[in-house]
């Protein structure tokens, strides 16, 4: 059987075959080789702000526990008791006064992961309290998020995470101007999308669909109607329409541009993808930060934060018009992804589909995925 890719006219490149989006075996391989080996934005660090606060996050097939220590340091551990393997914290988030205690046999760990107490522990002086403490997970904080990596030897954070932003924006320092770590979550919306995570990444990378499904977005960013996403270029911010005042659902005025942005970055929209699960949109007065949590071959949870200056959030300014713009875009995109998902197992898509020139850069993402799975 010939593959579609071999006889394509130059305008077209092949997508992945349909089963890449439906096969549980491939999904499991992706969990192991992609989500459990790359840096993964797990949580907004500022939400775990005081000693004893914790959050549990599913990363690949592991539950990861993020907890702020008494020394103020945020740490990540596998959420598993070292004794008999019970899940340590079952809540998604919470606050513990002093320690993390397994609800099964009461093995008790300090907020630094060290084994503090256990029944009869003093009669077992040969148990090393660090050795039998919680298993630590590599963690870095960047843009105000706690990024974790389950690999024993994580890839370079500078190359694979910061480097992704640099490659898209064409300048290593540009993203720092938004001071994303000092912004506050003005709104968070969680989407339960019945689609494979790769459909969501691919959708985010192209704008061939923009004129068809994003009427509000193309009103604000007219060049998107041409089908070339900000992600197609290096260092390109899509310009706001001349009659538009802000990045809002009706083009009405937003908030003042963030402090360190120059005139060059004003009235523009930048977008960055950090493989495998983060999309960042940068506009003059806020940042939209998406994190994907793949749950199954055909289901992905997407958490989207709208981040504003401390002042905007503290003074309770109405963020609804700017939230509404990208919330609609998200709904339109995720509806489209959900429309594709059932067709991934259709005979019509056995060998996959095609990418038009304005989507050709998606083939690089496909190579990235297949390289990891090889």
């Amino acid at each position: 059987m010939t593959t579609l890719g071999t006889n394509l006219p130059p305008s077209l490149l092949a997508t992945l075959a349909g089963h890449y989006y439906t096969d549980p075996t491939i999904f499991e391989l992706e969990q192991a080789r992609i989500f459990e080996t790359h840096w993964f934005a797990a949580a907004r660090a500022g939400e775990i702000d005081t000693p004893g606060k914790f959050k549990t996050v599913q990363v690949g097939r592991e539950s990861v526990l993020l907890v702020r220590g008494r020394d103020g340091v945020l740490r990540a551990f596998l959420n598993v008791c070292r004794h008999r393997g019970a899940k340590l914290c079952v809540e998604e988030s919470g606050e513990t006064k002093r320690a993390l205690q397994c609800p099964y046999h009461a093995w008790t760990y300090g907020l630094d992961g060290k084994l503090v107490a256990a029944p009869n522990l003093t009669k077992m002086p040969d148990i090393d309290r660090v050795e039998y403490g919680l298993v630590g997970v590599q963690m870095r904080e960047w843009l105000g998020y706690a990024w974790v990596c389950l690999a024993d030897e994580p890839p370079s954070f500078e190359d694979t995470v910061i480097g992704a932003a640099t490659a898209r924006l064409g300048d290593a320092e540009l993203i720092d101007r938004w001071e994303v770590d000092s912004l506050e979550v003005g709104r968070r919306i969680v989407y339960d999308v019945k689609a494979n995570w790769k459909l969501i990444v691919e959708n985010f990378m192209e704008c061939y669909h923009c004129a068809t499904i994003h009427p509000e977005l193309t009103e604000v960013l007219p060049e998107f109607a041409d089908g070339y996403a900000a992600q197609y270029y290096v260092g390109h911010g899509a310009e706001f329409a001349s009659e538009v005042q802000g990045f809002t659902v009706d083009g009405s005025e937003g908030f003042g541009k963030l402090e360190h942005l120059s005139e060059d970055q004003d009235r523009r929209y930048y977008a960055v993808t950090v493989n495998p699960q983060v999309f960042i949109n940068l506009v003059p007065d806020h940042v939209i930060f998406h994190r994907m949590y793949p749950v199954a071959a055909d289901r992905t949870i997407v958490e989207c934060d709208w981040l504003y200056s401390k002042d905007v959030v503290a003074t309770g300014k109405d963020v609804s018009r700017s939230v509404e713009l990208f919330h609609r875009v998200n709904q339109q995109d995720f509806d489209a992804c959900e429309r594709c998902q059932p067709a991934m197992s259709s005979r019509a898509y056995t060998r996959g589909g095609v990418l038009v020139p304005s989507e050709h850069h998606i083939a690089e993402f496909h190579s990235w995925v297949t390289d990891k799975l090889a």
Partner: protein
Amino acid sequence: MIPVCAVRDLPVGEAVRVEADVPIAVFNVDGELYAIDDTCTHQDASLADGWLEGCLIECPLHATCFDLRTGNPTGPPAKKPVRTHEVVVENDHVYVRVSTSILQHGDVA
């Protein structure tokens, strides 16, 4: 008397466990030293590993607090008190004079 440690090795807010016939824990509460049996009367856990707040030590396993002055638990699950012991400081060293009272719980070391 049982030697415990140098005074400087037991800073404020800390505890030290000593192996006597029965393990004993000595606590430094704002400069005042207290000694009690180290083992919780509910389940075998070291109170020296617990959390000190004022004159109360909270067991690290099931959160019963014992009053260091009386040895009495303030609430369940422990029901029986721990013994208290006299602390003596001589020449910058901490010693404990072990109480001769009978252990309240069956778990004799």
